[in-house]
């Protein structure tokens, strides 16, 4: 998936790095120092529906459905996360215990058209 450039109109991944110091949360989140808060944005014109951001076979399946049913589909496909990974956090809870946990699906790695 391309990373969004300012002028990119098509579906892409917009990257933001969030430093826990900037949130004022560095006193209770011990590790890491921050994380990537990425999100998907951009247009998904018909020829991109099911684009290989997910899987080429899915793309061709969607494309043939589109052609068979209606050359100009009413619904549009959306720019959504297609790959995400967990974030491992080490933090202090309210009793001063140190807790290490993996938060699933926290970081968006790839975007694609639904």
């Amino acid at each position, binding site marked *: 998936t391309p990373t969004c450039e300012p002028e990119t109109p098509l579906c892409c991944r917009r990257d933001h790095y969030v430093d826990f110091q900037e949130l004022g949360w560095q006193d*209770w989140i011990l590790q890491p120092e921050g994380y990537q808060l990425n999100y998907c944005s951009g247009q998904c014109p018909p020829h991109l529906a099911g684009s290989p951001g997910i899987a080429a076979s899915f793309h061709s399946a969607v494309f043939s459905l589109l052609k068979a049913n209606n050359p100009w589909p009413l619904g549009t496909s959306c720019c959504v996360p297609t790959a995400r990974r967990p974030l491992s956090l080490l933090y202090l809870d*309210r009793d*001063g215990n140190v807790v290490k946990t993996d938060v699933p699906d926290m970081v968006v790695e790839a975007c694609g058209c639904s």
Partner: protein
Amino acid sequence: QGAGSACPSCGGPTLAPQAERALVLELAKQQILEGLHLTSRPRITHPPPQAALTRALQRLQPGSVAPANGEEVISFATITESSASACSSTLTFHLPTARSQRLYHARLWLHVLPTFPGTLYLRTFRWNPGRRRRGGSRTLLAQHQTTTPGWHALTLPSSGLRGEESAVLNLQLDCRLLGGNTTAVPQWLLDTAGEERPFLELKVRPSGPGAGRARRR
């Protein structure tokens, strides 16, 4: 709102960079609290000393991965009763209130300073203070022997630590010397505030139906 430019997704006006950044930070807070099942950030009233924290983290297996969907917890002891001369003490731990979690691994880390020759024989009890004035009850959890000073990880039966709805766990330690001059009472200093304070290392995973099975996508 940015002048003129349109949002590539919805065609509406885009946000000015500062406004977008503020929105991203707010989103990050929501996402982290949701991921940790918290309604608000914890207010840390008694953070553990940095040195104790650093030592405790060094003790854990380097790079140990938190169990899938589970958590690893380090809980530092507060010493509620300690007879200065002997080495029997009561350690109190305030464990995370379990969110339908099941404890399956527990180790008590102690920094031992025997100053007498011979073997230190140590018993660990779970202490239930009981509700009324009468004395509580105690259950033997584990027995260990050691001849060397320094850090020791005492494995405790996780079954013995579960069960109570209270998040407060009291462990009572009882030790004496084997062999050598058994009349002497080992001067075992429990470091309560410094870097070598005792701590519990726990591993929990979600309990409940199907928690262990892979999620069906």
